[in-house]
C-alpha cells in the first residue's frame, strides 16, 4: 500500500526503473560497524546504487555505539566496500554514493538515543523531499532485537505502518517458545506485514530459480508428485568446520543453524503447491501449508554426527572437539541425516531425505529428485543392468544448474542401455554479473516486497518440526565421522533400510 500522492502516481514514472525502487527511502542499519554490515550490507547497498536500482531519493543511516561523524562513517563504509564488494570501487561513482551515507551514534539501552534517531530520520526525510519509506535493519546479535524494537516503537518510529519496515536476521528464536516470545515483542510495535525476516538463502539466484523451474515450465509439474517421484534428497554440505564461530555453534548445532531455516525453506520451495500469483501472501501461504503438512522430525528417522579428524581436499583437519572454544565432551551435532514425510495428496508416501554437515567431502547444496523406475523394461536383463532410475538434480551451489539423468543406447553392437547426464550450467547461459543474495533481499525490503522473506507462521511451524529432535538430542553423543567423508555410516544405513542410497554429489 502506498499513500496518496506516492511516486508511483507520477505520470512520468511509467516505464522507468524496471526492477528498481522508485519511492524515496531511508535505510537505517543498527549495528552499522559490525561484521554483517561490513561484509554484506554496505557492499550490497553500494552495488544496488551502482546498478541504478536504488530510489533517486535515498539515504542510509548507520547506527552504532562507536562515536563517528558522517565523514568518518563514509571512510569506514568505503574501506568495507573495497574489502568485500563483488565489484571494484568506482572512484568516479563513490562521491554520489557517499553523499547518501549518514551516521548516528547511540546505544540500545537508553530511550533518549531512539528519540535522537527519530529526529535524525525526520531531518533526512525532509532533506530528500519527504514521504520516505523507512527500513530499519537489525544487524545486531539477536539478544538486542527486543530492546531495539521497543526503542523504535516508543520513539514512534514504527509508524506509519504503510511506510515503515523492520528487517530481522536469523535466528528467529532458538525454539518454538522463544520464537513466539520474540514475535510477541515485535508485534507489540510492528504489524506482521512490516516484519521482514531475512534468510539470505532465499535471495540466492539459484534458489529463486526453483520457482522459475517449477512454475514456468509445464513439462515438470505433471510428474512432480508421488506418482512419479520415488524420493527426494536435499543436501546442504559444507567443507569448512566451525572456524571462528565455535561459541555460537555450540549454542546452535546443525539443526538450528541449517535445518530449521535454510533447509526447510528450500524443501518448501521444492514441494509446495503452485501459488496463484508470485505475490508475497500467495507464495508464503503455499509455503506455510506445505510446512503444516510435514510431520515433526523424530529421532528414529534421524542420524546425528560430529566431525572427527581427517582430511578435506588433501588438508588435514582437526576433530570438532579439538577446535578452539569447543569443550572436549561437546555433544553438539555438526551433521544430520533425516527422513521427512509430508502428509498431503501430492507427497504422501514419497519421503524427503535431508542431510547437512560441516567438514564434509565438498561444499555443495543440491536437490535431487529421484524418479521411479519404469514399470516394465522390455529389454534383456543384460541390456539394462547398468541403467539407473531417472533423476533430476537442481544444483544450488556451486556450479549452479540442472542435471537430468536418463537412459540412452550405448554405441555397441548389442543393445546396451546406459545412464547419461544432460547438464545445464546456469553460468553457461548467463555469465553476466550475478547479484549477491543480499542485494536482492535489500532491494525487496526497500521496495516493500516480502515474497522472499519468512512469515511468522512458517517460522513457528519450522520450530514445531525441529523441536522434538533438538529436545531428544540434548543428551547422548553424536556419531563421529571422518572430516572429508560424507558423514557417519549410520546415515547410509538410514537410507539402506528403505532400500535406497545417498547420491554422491
Amino acid at each position, binding site marked *: 500500500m502506498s499513500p496518496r500522492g506516492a511516486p508511483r502516481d507520477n*505520470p512520468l514514472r511509467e516505464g522507468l526503473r524496471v526492477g528498481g525502487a522508485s519511492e524515496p527511502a531511508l535505510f537505517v542499519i543498527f549495528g552499522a560497524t559490525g561484521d554483517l554490515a561490513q561484509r554484506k550490507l554496505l557492499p550490497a547497498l553500494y552495488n544496488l546504487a551502482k546498478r541504478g536500482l536504488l530510489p533517486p531519493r535515498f539515504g542510509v543511516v548507520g547506527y552504532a555505539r562507536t562515536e563517528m561523524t558522517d565523514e568518518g562513517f563514509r571512510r569506514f563504509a568505503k574501506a568495507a566496500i573495497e574489502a568485500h564488494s563483488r565489484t571494484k570501487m568506482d572512484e568516479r561513482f563513490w562521491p554520489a554514493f557517499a553523499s547518501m551515507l549518514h551516521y548516528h551514534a547511540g546505544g540500545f539501552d537508553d530511550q533518549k538515543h531512539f528519540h535522537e534517531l527519530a529526529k535524525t530520520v525526520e531531518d533526512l526525510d525532509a532533506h530528500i523531499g519527504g514521504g520516505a519509506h523507512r527500513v530499519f535493519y537489525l544487524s545486531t546479535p539477536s539478544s538486542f532485537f527486543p530492546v531495539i524494537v521497543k526503542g523504535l516503537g516508543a520513539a514512534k518510529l514504527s509508524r506509519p505502518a504503510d511506510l515503515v519496515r523492520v528487517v530481522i536476521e536469523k535466528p528467529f528464536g532458538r525454539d518454538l517458545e522463544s520464537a513466539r516470545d520474540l514475535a510477541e515483542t515485535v508485534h507489540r510495535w510492528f504489524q506482521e506485514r512490516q516484519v521482514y525476516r531475512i534468510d539470505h538463502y532465499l535471495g540466492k539466484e539459484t534458489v529463486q530459480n526453483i520457482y522459475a523451474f517449477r512454475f514456468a515450465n509445464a513439462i515438470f509439474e505433471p510428474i512432480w508428485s508421488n506418482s512419479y517421484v520415488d524420493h527426494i534428497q536435499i543436501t546442504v554440505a559444507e567443507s569448512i568446520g566451525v572456524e571462528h564461530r565455535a561459541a555460537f555453534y555450540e549454542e546452535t548445532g546443525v539443526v538450528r543453524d541449517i535445518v530449521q531455516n535454510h533447509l526447510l525453506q528450500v524443501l518448501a520451495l521444492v514441494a509446495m503447491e503452485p501459488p496463484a500469483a508470485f505475490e508475497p501472501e500467495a507464495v508464503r501461504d503455499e509455503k506455510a501449508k506445505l510446512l503444516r503438512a510435514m510431520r515433526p522430525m523424530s529421532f528414529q528417522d534421524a542420524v546425528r554426527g560430529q566431525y572427527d579428524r581427517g582430511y578435506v581436499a588433501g588438508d588435514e583437519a582437526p576433530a570438532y572437539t579439538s577446535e578452539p572454544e569447543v569443550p572436549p565432551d561437546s555433544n553438539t551435532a555438526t551433521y544430520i541425516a533425516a527422513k521427512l514425510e509430508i502428509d498431503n495428496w501430492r507427497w504422501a508416501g514419497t519421503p524427503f531425505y535431508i542431510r547437512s554437515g560441516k567438514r564434509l567431502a565438498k561444499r555443495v547444496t543440491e536437490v535431487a529428485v529421484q524418479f521411479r523406475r519404469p514399470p516394465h523394461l522390455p529389454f534383456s536383463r543384460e541390456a539394462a543392468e547398468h541403467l539407473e532410475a531417472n533423476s533430476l538434480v537442481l544444483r544450488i551451489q556451486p556450479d549452479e544448474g540442472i542435471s537430468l539423468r536418463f537412459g540412452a543406447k550405448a554405441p555397441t553392437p548389442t543393445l546396451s542401455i546406459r545412464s547419461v547426464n544432460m547438464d545445464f550450467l546456469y553460468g553457461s*547461459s548467463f555469465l553476466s554479473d550475478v547479484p549477491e543474495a543480499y542485494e536482492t533481499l535489500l532491494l525487496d525490503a526497500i521496495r516493500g516486497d516480502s515474497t522472499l522473506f519468512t512469515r511468522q507462521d512458517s517460522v513457528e511451524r519450522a520450530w514445531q518440526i525441529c523441536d522434538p529432535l533438538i529436545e531428544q538430542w540434548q543428551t547422548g553423543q553424536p556419531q563421529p565421522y571422518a572430516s572429508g567423508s560424507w558423514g557417519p555410516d549410520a546415515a547410509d544405513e538410514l537410507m539402506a533400510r528403505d532400500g535406497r542410497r545417498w547420491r554422491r554429489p
Partner: protein
Amino acid sequence: MTRPEIKTTGWTELAGVERALAELRGGDSLGSVRATTLNLVITCSTEEDAESTERVLEGIGGSRPLRAIVISPSSGTPKARVASACWTGAGQQVCTERITIHGARAALPSAVLALLVADLPVFLWWQGEIPDPSDSVLEELVEAATRVIVDSDQAGIEPVRHVDRMAAGLADLAWVRTNPWREAIAALFDAPRQRKALDHLVGLEVSGPPNQAALLAGWLRSRLDRQVGLDTTRAKRINRVELLCGDGAFVVERSSRNEHGEARGPNLAPRAVGLPAPGLVALLSGELDRLGAERPFEQALAAAA
C-alpha cells in the same frame, strides 16, 4: 573474465556453415549440450559498422551465449565464414558463434533465415541509416525479428517511425541514452507538491543532440497528454534540461567533469543525480535483455514531431 579463445574457418558455402560450427565446437558427441540464448543479426555496410560490430561482439559475447549473423552486402552468391569465441570466467564457459555473410544484398535475408537458431529470439541490430520502408531487405529482416535495434541519432526519427510500424518490438539507442535524464526528471516530480507544477508545464529547453531533445519532448507530451514546446541548443550529448512550469523552472544539469549532475526546482533542495553516458556495448547489452515493445517509447516517438 579472460580474453576469448577464438577459432575461425575460411569462407564456405552456406550449406556448410552448421557443419563448420560443429567442428569448431569439437564435434557434437553423445551427451553434449550447447547453450544459446538468442540470435543477433547485424547489418554491416561500412568500415565504421565493422568496427562497432567487432567492439560489440567482443564486449557482450562473454555474458550472453548467442549466435551472431553479420551481413555485409557485396555481390554474388552469399558465402560465409564462421567463428566461435569462448570466454571463461569463474570456472564457467560461455561460447558465442559468429557467422559473417557476404553476398548480393537481395539474397542476404534468405541466408539469415536459413541460419537462425530455431525457436530463440531474433534481435536485428540495424546500423546506420535506414532505407526507404519499401526496401525488401529491411522488410524481410524486420519481419523475422523479435526486436529491432536502431539508432535514431544516426538514422533520424522519421525512418525509425517507419520501422516502428513494421516491427514487433523496437529499441532506439538514442532513446536509451536519455534514460538517466528521464529518471532524473521524473524524480523531480515524485512529491505531490512538485507534481502539481506539471500541470503548468509549457516548454522544454534542452542542450543536447536535437534528436534526443525531440524524444524527450515527445516523452513529456505523451506522458502528460498535452502540448509541450521545445527549444534546443545543439550539443554532442545532453548537458542540460530545463522544464518551464509556469513561473518556475525545474533543471537537471550535468556537472562539467563527470557522469553526475544536479537536479533542482522550486521548493526543492538541489540534489546530486547520476547521469551516466554508457557506451555502445552497455547500451546494446541492455536492449538484448528486453523482449517485445516498449509502450512509453513508442508513444514518445509518435509525439516527438
